[in-house]
Structure formats: structure tokens, C-alpha cells
């Protein structure tokens, strides 16, 4: 009776399109995701977007301000800043996603181990406590100082620096799930430890890990830029946003336009990833979302 009474109102409502409904419900995901998608397209199609060889040095055209031929100007070695900034997108995305993936997978593995094996928990969590008391950027810097500069090492260094926080998150989830009736029931029914982890624990870690992974991605992008900026990150031969800014640092007073463009790209990229993370947190964890 009630159902039939309600039906007309429900039917009368969906005048607005699906896109608008999603946009209204999760604006942060849509906006962040769209910007990020555009940036990813820039990274993929960098060679086709009116760019020249980002490494091509032409001393005759040094320090040109942005103009018709050089949209973002040229730097002190006559390299095209537009091309270098666009190619820099690749480094930032690769490092951000790479470090987030590595830290998430590593943290998931360590979190599952510490959540289920007590003696390993005691040892591993003491190590994690120690690592956590070293500020993440400083830890990444220290790790980069002992290895050769390469994108791969940058990813590993940042992932290690982010690892303790992810581990702690997964461990927390595992510890609370372990006491849940459905896990006890599974154990009582004779489900093995491995199966319990895969079937019952793992799916419940996906949502928090997705959110955390996004934040790790954003902070990894900033950390990469910081590392490159202070000369301990991506090798100078590769055009990354941090490297472009680092090279322009000494001539900032006359050539500040060189710093501006990679800065804007970096900030917008990080902003879009953060928005995506906030949006997913709101969507996946309504209880927390109301508080933040």
C-alpha cells in the first residue's frame, strides 16, 4: 500500500540526468577525476602536443619570455619550457602512482602479517614506530643520499618512507576485523588462515587502502618534486617539474616564468589527487566524512 503511494513521487523525480546526479552526490570525485584524467592524457600524448625535444639545447634562444613560438618561454640553455613541463607530467604521475602502489602493496602485506602473527607484530611494529618518528621527506632524502639518482630509486625511497603509515592502517583494520563474529565463524567452520585472509579480511581493507593510497600518491608527487628540487631526486637529465624549478632557482629574479609553469602543473595535479581522495573518503566512509 505504502509502496504504491510512494511510486509516483519516485517516478516524477529523475528528470535530471545521470551525470548530474553523480556530480551532485560526489562533486569532489568528479572534479578531481576529470582533472587527473586530463593530466594523464597530457602525460600519454606529450610527444604530440606541439612539443619539441625537451632536451634540445639551443644557446641562441636562451631565456626567451613566453611568446608565440615558445608558449612557456625557454630556459637558460634555450630549452623549450612548454615541452619540458609537459614531459615532466610523466615523471610526476609515474612516481606518484608507482610509490602509492608499492607502499600500498607493501603496507598491506606487512599489515596482514602484523595483524595475525603476534611475534612478528612485536618486532615489525617497533621498527615501524622508529621509522615513523623520522619525518617522511627526511627519510626519503636520507635514502636517496645513499643511492644513485634514478626514477626507480625515487619511487622506492618514497614508498619506504610512506610504508609505516599504510602498515599501521591495515594492521588496525585487521585487528578490529579479527574479533568480528563473521571471522570467528569462518575460523570455527574450519576455514584456514590464508583463506580467511583472502575471503574475509582482504576485501574489507580495499576501501581504506584506496583512500590512503590516493593520499600517498599526492604526497609522493610533492616529495618527488622536493627531492628533485634539492638535487637528490630524479636525475637532472630527465625533465621533471622539480628539476625544472631547481635549475631555474639561481636565475629566479630574471626568469621567474620558468618556475611558474611547472609550479602550476604540480599544484593542480596534487590538488586533483587530493580532491579524488577526499571524495572517495566521503563516499566510502560517511561516518568520518561528516567529521572532517
Amino acid at each position: 500500500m505504502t509502496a504504491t503511494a510512494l511510486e509516483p513521487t519516485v517516478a516524477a523525480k529523475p528528470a535530471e540526468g545521470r551525470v548530474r546526479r553523480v556530480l551532485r552526490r560526489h562533486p569532489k570525485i568528479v572534479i578531481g577525476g576529470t582533472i587527473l584524467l586530463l593530466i594523464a592524457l597530457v602525460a600519454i600524448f606529450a610527444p604530440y602536443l606541439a612539443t619539441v625535444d625537451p632536451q634540445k639545447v639551443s644557446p641562441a634562444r636562451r631565456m626567451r619570455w613566453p611568446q608565440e613560438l615558445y608558449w612557456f618561454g625557454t630556459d637558460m640553455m634555450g630549452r623549450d619550457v612548454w615541452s619540458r613541463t609537459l614531459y615532466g607530467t610523466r615523471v610526476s604521475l609515474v612516481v606518484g602512482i608507482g610509490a602509492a602502489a608499492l607502499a600500498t602493496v607493501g603496507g598491506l602485506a606487512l599489515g596482514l602479517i602484523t595483524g595475525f602473527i603476534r611475534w612478528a607484530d612485536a618486532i615489525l611494529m617497533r621498527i615501524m614506530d622508529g621509522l615513523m618518528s623520522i619525518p617522511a621527506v627526511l627519510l626519503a632524502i636520507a635514502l636517496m643520499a645513499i643511492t644513485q639518482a634514478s626514477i626507480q630509486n625515487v619511487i622506492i625511497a618514497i614508498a619506504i618512507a610512506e610504508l609505516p603509515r599504510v602498515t599501521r592502517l591495515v594492521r588496525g583494520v585487521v585487528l578490529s576485523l579479527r574479533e568480528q563474529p563473521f571471522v570467528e565463524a569462518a575460523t570455527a567452520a574450519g576455514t584456514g588462515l590464508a583463506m580467511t585472509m583472502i575471503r574475509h579480511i582482504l576485501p574489507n581493507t580495499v576501501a581504506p587502502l584506496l583512500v590512503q593510497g590516493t593520499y600517498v600518491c599526492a604526497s609522493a608527487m610533492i616529495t618527488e618534486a622536493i627531492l628533485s628540487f634539492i638535487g637528490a631526486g630524479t636525475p637532472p637529465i630527465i625533465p621533471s617539474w622539480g628539476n625544472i624549478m631547481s635549475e631555474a632557482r639561481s636565475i629566479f629574479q630574471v626568469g621567474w616564468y620558468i618556475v611558474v609553469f611547472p609550479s602550476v602543473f604540480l599544484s593542480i595535479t596534487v590538488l586533483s589527487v587530493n580532491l579524488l581522495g577526499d571524495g572517495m573518503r566521503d563516499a566510502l566512509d560517511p561516518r568520518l566524512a561528516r567529521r572532517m
Partner: protein
Amino acid sequence: MFAYIVRRLLATIPVMGVVALFVFALLHLTPGDPAVLIAGELATDADIAAIRAKLGLDQPFHIQLATWLWSLARGDLGISIFTNLPVTRLIEQRLEPTLMLTLTTLIVSIVIALPLGIISAWKAGTWIDTAVMSFAVFGFSVPVFVLGFVLILVFSLQLDWFPVQGYTSISEGFLPFLANITLPSVALGMIYAALIARITRASMLDVLAQDYIRTADAKGLATFDVLIRHGLKNAAVPIVTVIGIGIALLISGVVVTETVFAIPGLGRLTVDAIVKRDYPIVQGMVLLFSAVYVFINLLVDLSYTLLDPRIRY
């Protein structure tokens, strides 16, 4: 209380022990020979041997570890490879600018963030709230050196209000000191302020929903009194906690800010040491910064009793 402080101090020993071991391990888990890496590409065999001897890498492993821990216990952080000065001396020389920068940043961030967070919670759901929270997301997304460059560009190069770079000691006059430290403090403080504003809003929202706030309102207290004396005071514990945790952001940011603004502090010392691979300095700085971080968070824990009499140790 006293017993609790002692217990907490003892509890920092294993944490710092792990940090010390990690810093020691850094040099030894290096793929390849650290001496070769430090010496650089143009080094001769004799140079490499000299560095190896200096770092004690020619000793057996257990002797190296024992020597390292023993010198740490005596407060000896080793000798810089390039300047031949004790690392502790170098730290002493560079301490003031960093200490001042951190203090001013702390003040700037809290002065900006607390009112923003409180107003945002008070006016929750309005455009003011949206504006403040947008500022917070912005603060998290703009890296400190980008902000530093923008500030220099606008306020130093275009408007000529502040010096472009450098540091003046407070002993040479307060105004010149202030002129130099303002922009770096704002640049460094932005992300920190974003963090504090966010937690202030969240914490205040919780408190403002309580019955005693409604009572305070109903008995006709001024809004300011309700927000500050009844609201903020009860919302303080999470805020102070985040201020403590956020010190990590400040430490990481100092390294970058000092590079952008050419401030001769500990951050600059760290960056120079990394570029030159002066490893004893890098090790010393990681240890020092971590120790400061752990110690501040210990103080934060202890401050809970002052902020909330219900918390007793």
C-alpha cells in the same frame, strides 16, 4: 604523574634505538661501496681508502656498530667528511636560523589556523565554511617551495616590501629579523595551518554539538565566550595532538624553505650534505630531527593533563 613521565621517557629509548640502528644501517645496506659513492667519480683509490678509514668502514661490522652506538651515547655525531669539523659543532653554528624559523612558523600557523577553524565550525555549512575548507585543501596541495617562489615574486620582486632572500639574526635588530623571516614563515606555515584549521573545525564541531554549549548560549553568554572558553578549551586535546604530529611537516618543510630563501640553517646544512654526500652530517641530521619530533610529541602527551583535568596519569 612523575612516574608516568619517567615511563614515557624510557619508552622513547627503543624508538630512538630503532632510529639510530636505521641510520647506521643506511650506510651499510647501500648497494655497492658507500665509500666509492661518497668519493665521487673522480676519486683515486687512495681517496676512497681515506674515506673508508674515516667512516670506520675498514673495521669489522660489530666493532663499527659498537663504536657508532658508543659515540652516540656520548653525544658525538662524528666528523664531517668535507669540512673536517665535528657534526655537533656544525649543528650548533646553524641552529639559530632554523629554531627561529620554526618558532615564527608555529606562531604564524596557529594564529591563522585557529580562528579560521573556529569560525568555520561556528558557521558550518555556510560559504565561510566552504571558503575556509577550500583554503585547507589548497594549503595541502601547493608545495612549500612553489608558495615560497610566489611570495618572493609578489612581495619582494614586484612590491619590494621584503628582502628577497637571506637571514638576519635577531641580535642584529628585531625589525630586520622580522623582514627576513616573514615570507619564509608564511610559505612554510601554509600546509601546517591547513592541517590545524581542519582539525580545529572537526574538533569544534564535535564540541559545539554538546549540551553545555547550548546551556552557555541559553544563559546569554557572549558568542566569543561560548566559542573560546567553553568551546575551544574542550576541543583542545585533538588540536594539540595534531600540532605535535604536524611538526613532521615543519621539519620536512624547513629543508626546502631554507633552500628557497637561502637561510643558512640546519635544512640548508642537510641539503648541502646530501649534494656532497657528506654522510656523517646526513646521519646526524636524521637523528637530531627525529629526536626533536619524538620529544615534542612526548611534551604534547604530557600537556593533556593541563588541557583536560579529567586526563590523569
